């Protein structure tokens, strides 16, 4: 046990790679789905070991207070999602939407994706982080297109093209950062190692950093799904398998956001450079309000919640952009809560779509009557995502809005407007879906509710009571984010 402790960080990466290789070889989908769950569980436990004892930062990998949170969240949601997908995917096979061959590919890719995201999080090297994000993106592209339907392929293609452009922009930003770092730190790998870069950030050339940040913001912002770079997100969510939608919303967006945050820290470390805050605030507000209005005309339930992800990413970007211990804390909390809630919602939506055999909102009615557990679960989820107590997102929105209004009243007004508009839209759709005369099939749900309610329970608990260690941790990170 002690022997492997230092390598927990490596394990987080190795386990997915190995299991991906194995999964690619196993024909039987029952075994592979179980194995998938097992692998995710192992990754999760490895990630948790990181809390126990933190390895020294290396040239390529490291763990600090910031990314350990993300890693833990990432692996946890990865695990629950694998649980969900294990029950979900078999149904896809029965309905013939997928063939065993594709299923094998699916499971392998799932682990590759997890690997990519974990790598992006723990990498201590800007270049490596970039490569990892690209890897995660490409793997998700393949997953999105897995159904091979016209719409799926088209969504995948859109995702692919926009994603590649984003990658390119991000790369240029990374190069610029290197250029800025080189005169101070000297040539070679050292100038790309995060831990060293951040130490000398103060003496970097601000002009270069400015340009770099713009490219990085747009590049990784494309992945975050900030408007107007969001175009890929709704379709990718809507057309891919639901577990992937859950992972996209719950994890990939966070990973990209993590990258943006890193560079925000870097920029705010150098005094003369432009303040990254305002840029993020503006993009956040645009995304929030845009997505809020887009919610009204959605007909596909998964696309609806995809747009709500854009909205929440906007809120988070706003919070981090505002900065300060309170807002950063709120941002972190909101991000965590959003991942949990949104993935829970997608679990529920997945069940709904399988039972009713459609994703069209108009064709789903009276869930609380026809499928009480599922229906009320969805209601709780939407209530939570809409920011109502006693669920976690309420707390973060409380902090964001109140502190924003105290500091920049004029910024808070569009924020509040966006929140209200989005709330109206979500509730409108919810009351259509959850209440009224049931329609469609009344067949019971086969898949397990465990992941969904596990997430909802956590969100609920967080809304009432945040454990002290977590709080101190978040506060520490918030201070770190400046």
């Amino acid at each position, binding site marked *: 046990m002690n022997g492997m402790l230092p390598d927990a960080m490596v394990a987080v990466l190795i386990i997915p790679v190995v299991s991906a290789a194995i999964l690619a070889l196993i024909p039987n989908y029952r075994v592979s789905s179980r194995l998938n769950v097992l692998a995710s569980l192992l990754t999760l436990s490895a990630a948790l070991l990181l809390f126990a004892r933190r390895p020294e930062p290396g040239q390529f990998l490291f763990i600090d207070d910031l990314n350990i949170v993300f890693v833990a969240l990432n692996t946890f949601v990865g695990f629950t999602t694998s649980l969900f997908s294990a029950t979900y995917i078999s149904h896809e096979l029965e309905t013939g939407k997928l063939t065993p061959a594709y299923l094998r590919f699916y499971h392998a890719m799932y682990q590759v994706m997890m690997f990519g995201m974990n790598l992006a999080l723990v990498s201590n090297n800007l*270049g*490596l982080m*970039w*490569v990892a994000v*690209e890897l995660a993106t*490409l793997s998700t592209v393949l997953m999105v297109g897995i159904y091979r339907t*016209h*719409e799926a*392929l*088209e*969504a995948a*293609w*859109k995702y*692919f*093209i926009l994603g*590649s*452009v984003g*990658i*390119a922009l991000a*790369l*240029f930003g990374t*190069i*610029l950062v*290197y*250029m*800025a770092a*080189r*005169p101070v730190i000297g*040539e*070679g*790998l050292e*100038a*790309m190692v995060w831990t060293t870069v951040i130490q000398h950030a103060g003496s970097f*050339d601000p*002009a*270069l950093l*400015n*340009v770099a940040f713009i490219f990085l913001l747009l590049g990784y912002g494309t992945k975050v799904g900030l408007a107007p770079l969001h175009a890929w997100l*709704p*379709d990718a969510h*809507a057309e891919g398998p639901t577990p992937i939608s859950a992972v996209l919303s719950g994890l990939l967006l966070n990973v990209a956001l993590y990258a943006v945050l890193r560079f925000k820290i870097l920029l705010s470390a150098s005094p003369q450079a432009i303040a990254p805050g305002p840029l993020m605030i503006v993009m956040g507000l645009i995304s929030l309000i845009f997505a809020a209005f887009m919610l009204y005309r*959605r*007909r*596909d339930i998964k*696309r609806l919640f995809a747009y709500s992800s854009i909205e929440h990413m906007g809120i988070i970007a706003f919070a981090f952009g505002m900065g300060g211990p309170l807002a950063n804390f709120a941002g972190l909390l909101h991000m965590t809560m959003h991942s949990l809630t949104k993935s829970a919602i997608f679990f529920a939506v997945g069940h709904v779509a399988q039972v009713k055999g459609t994703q069209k909102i108009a064709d789903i009615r009276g869930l609380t009557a026809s499928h009480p557990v599922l229906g009320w679960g969805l209601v709780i989820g939407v209530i939570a995502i809409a920011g109502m107590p006693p669920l976690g997102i309420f707390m973060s929105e409380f902090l964001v809005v109140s502190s924003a209004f105290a500091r920049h009243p004029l910024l808070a007004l569009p924020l509040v407007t966006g929140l209200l508009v989005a709330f109206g839209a979500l509730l409108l759709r919810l009351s259509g879906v959850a209440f009224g005369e049931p329609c469609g099939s009344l067949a019971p749900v086969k898949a397990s509710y465990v992941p969904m309610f596990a997430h909802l329970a956590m969100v609920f608990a967080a809304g009432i009571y945040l454990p002290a260690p977590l709080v101190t941790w978040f506060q520490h990170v918030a201070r770190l984010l400046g």
Partner: protein
Amino acid sequence: MIGLQFDLAHLLAGGLVLLSFMMLYQDRLYALLNVFAFHSVVLALSVAWQAYIQDAAHLYVTAAIALLFKGVIIPVALHRMIVRLGIHREIETVVGVGLTMLAGMALVALSMVVMLRVTPGADALAREDLAFALSVILIGLLVMVTRRNAVGQVVGFMSLENGLVLAATGAKGMPLVVEISVAFSVLIAFIVIGIFLFRIRERFDTVDIGALDQFRGERR
């Protein structure tokens, strides 16, 4: 010696920008491809030159990749694809050439303004390279935006990526350059194959992206 180094590098980088401009006003796909091939060759040269003056051996690999993959294989592949798709004599730009050129000018100017802000502390070579690279990237994006069909856009994307490589190699001692260029080649291969796949599956009667996303998520 420094002077010569500088001048040659400068020349090659400037050449790249020039070629990007030429791409802007090509309305025939063939011509576009040819210009692009030339673009890649020049890139390969400049990378090689950088490899020589930085005496960084691994950059030669990048140069080779640029030369072979983007200078030869991809253009040829696309060439044949165009023939097979029978779209070789399509004239397809969105806005008029003149306007595009003006936009290109503006972009170059913009990138200059932005980049020359950089304190001369960073060596001049890097600054020049970066300025040129930035303009190549922006023009590449402009090409992508002003082209209707997928091949044109892919070419635009690749020229953009050339700009990236130029920047990467211009950055002295930048690690992972080779890996990155490889990764990008893979990416481009994906794209090309993607187009090709769509063609073969007979899902889309043309690779015009306008048709490709006729569905666009939700019907109105």
